């Protein structure tokens, strides 16, 4: 599995909750992106400032408390900025303490490294945490647009369907959310395998030409 593919899969797995719960409409997805990105950045900063002086467990609790607080504030403010229902407030608050928020914290991931038996070794499996966070934001935003357009026939509350088109209401339900996530995984892997096949073909052709 290539690095890009692994980065996408990591973003989808760690950000599964916001992608599933906050993607019924594009505005919800946008709010989710703002809350999770804000919480992630501040959690990473907290980790960086405190990790030098305090024990790891205390730094963890601080990072969770900071991310949770930012998410709570965001969850209470965002319904005033975007046309989202009040029922989304708890979902936004929960999104602030999902695993994707803490990718910038643990085990020196802040610097794109992993800690193993006291030695710091470079983690080359996936991209650095800002890239993972950006990929997550993209996938969440796309999820919002795809689910809203298919499920309600609108994008950012503007009708896009032609008259008489019946929206696929299932996309507004939990089943639709899981279907989007499974499709995203499938497409990431399909793109990766096609790219690998193309590169193998090119290598084979070049080797044939050299002979």
């Amino acid at each position, binding site marked *: 599995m290539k690095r890009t593919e692994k980065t996408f899969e990591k973003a989808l797995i*760690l950000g599964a909750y916001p992608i599933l*719960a906050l993607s019924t409409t594009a505005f919800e997805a946008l709010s989710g992106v703002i809350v999770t990105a804000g919480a992630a950045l501040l959690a990473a900063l907290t980790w960086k400032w405190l990790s030098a002086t305090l024990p790891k467990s205390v730094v963890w609790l601080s990072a969770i408390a900071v991310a949770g607080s930012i998410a709570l504030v965001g969850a*209470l403010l965002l319904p005033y900025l975007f046309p989202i229902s009040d029922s989304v407030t*708890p979902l936004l608050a*929960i999104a602030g303490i999902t695993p994707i928020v803490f*990718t910038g914290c643990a085990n020196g991931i802040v610097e794109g490294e*992993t800690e193993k038996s006291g030695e710091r070794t470079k983690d080359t499996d996936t991209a650095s945490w800002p890239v993972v966070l950006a990929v997550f934001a993209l996938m969440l935003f796309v999820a919002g647009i795809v689910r809203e357009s298919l499920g309600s026939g609108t994008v950012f509350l503007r009708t896009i369907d032609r008259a008489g088109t019946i929206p696929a209401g299932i996309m507004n339900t939990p089943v639709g959310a*899981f279907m989007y996530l499974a499709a995203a995984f499938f497409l990431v892997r399909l793109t990766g395998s096609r790219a690998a096949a193309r590169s193998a073909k090119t290598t084979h052709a070049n080797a044939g030409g050299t002979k």
Partner: protein
Amino acid sequence: MSQGVEILLNQMLAENMMLVSFLGVSLLLTGSEGPRTAIRSGLGIAGTVIVASLVGSILASVLPGGEIIRLFAFLVITLCAVGALRAGGLLTDERFGLPSPIFALPLLFGSQFMLYELQLDFELTFAAAIGAGIGVYIAYVLAGSMNEQIRLTETGSLMKGVPALVLALGLLAFAMSGFQLL
């Protein structure tokens, strides 16, 4: 059917916290354990969810102040529940370089909020908490079993692992939503 039983069944099936509200879905996707381990560790997780959601919803109903005070109380209880899970020897490993209790945070926080939102009296809150815990346990064990099945069966490489599990969880959510009629 009494109201308590109805609420218990509703929390267990139609409003399952793992499958319908997506809380703890990261826990399901990253848990590589099979059904045997899931049966044991699922009990601990479900028990913690029951206690945390009960304490959280009761505390929130007696706390003075607005929504933000309640949400902070939920956050504090969530951190205590995480500590209890660690002390019980559960979720001690690391997943994607993160300590695994991080993956349980949305479930522990969200379950308190969902239960409080129901605005029930103590007996019914208790029934709802038990139902939520059983629902979490069912989803956790089923996901563990599906994980093992996916590993053992000849699934195509494009769907092997997490994508197949996500699709299976979607079908399970579909089945659970069928109990809405209760």
